[in-house]
């Protein structure tokens, strides 16, 4: 059995990232897209922390904390927008919203 190396964590991050991309593309619901973005951010965080450990340099972890903070901001604002969107259009389907714009 191989020991757990950096590559493993990076693979996990890559998987998370790919799934985030799929969610962003496949979901029509705005909340779904938001979830996808959260996944992508988490993927980045996993990589950051893994690298930080590997290089024994805590800067990566600081970055991860800041990413989490920004994710929180983003979630708050995005949900506010989604709610407004819902109020305006009665739906949170992004395609519909974009069609209205024309």
């Amino acid at each position, binding site marked *: 059995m191989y*020991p*757990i*190396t*950096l*590559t*493993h*964590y*990076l*693979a*996990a991050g*890559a*998987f*998370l*990232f*790919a*799934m985030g991309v*799929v969610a962003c*593309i*496949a*979901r*029509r*619901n*705005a*909340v*779904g897209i*938001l*979830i996808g973005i*959260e*996944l992508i951010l*988490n993927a980045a965080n*996993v990589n950051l*922390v*893994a690298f930080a*450990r*590997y290089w024994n340099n*805590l*800067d990566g*972890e*600081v970055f991860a*904390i*800041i990413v*989490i*903070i*920004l*994710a*929180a*901001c*983003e*979630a*708050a*604002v995005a*949900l*506010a927008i*989604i*709610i407004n*969107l*819902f109020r305006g259009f009665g739906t*949170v*389907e992004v*395609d519909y919203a974009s069609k209205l714009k024309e």
Partner: protein
Amino acid sequence: MSPEIVQAVIFYFLAAMLVVSCAIVVFSHSIVNACFALLFTLLAVAGFYALLGADFLAVTQVVVYVGGILVLLLFGILLTSPLPIVLGVATRRTYYLAVAAGAAVFAMLMIIVRAFWAGQPAVPEQQSTLEALGMLLLGKYLFPFEFASLTLLAALIGAAYLVRRNDR
């Protein structure tokens, strides 16, 4: 069991949890289900952090993501989706496209990862980084940290302003 084995076991367990929960998050027809699955994904990531010795981050992950963002998302879903809660996955064609794109991204990232970081030695056993992290955050990175907190504050105020019911 040697620590490596324990570590490996925990890692693979977390990885399995991640894969399954992630799949549900992405492919589930119900947005609520997706949200709950996201809980496990996030927990898995928190586990990774703990495994990597980033205990503070693990805790933060749980508190902020699970306790904050996820709840926020659920509220968002409940507030916006009329029952029955359907999820909106796009047309079948888009769906396939999405999966293909995801696969491509994954493949691509894996290629890069293997090209650069294959065969690295095992990640060493870690001590807690809490103290060092604290020093960093309130020392070298004080300004970005404070700035981030300011951003958070601004975002919260902005969000509150945005969802304020318009009386007109």
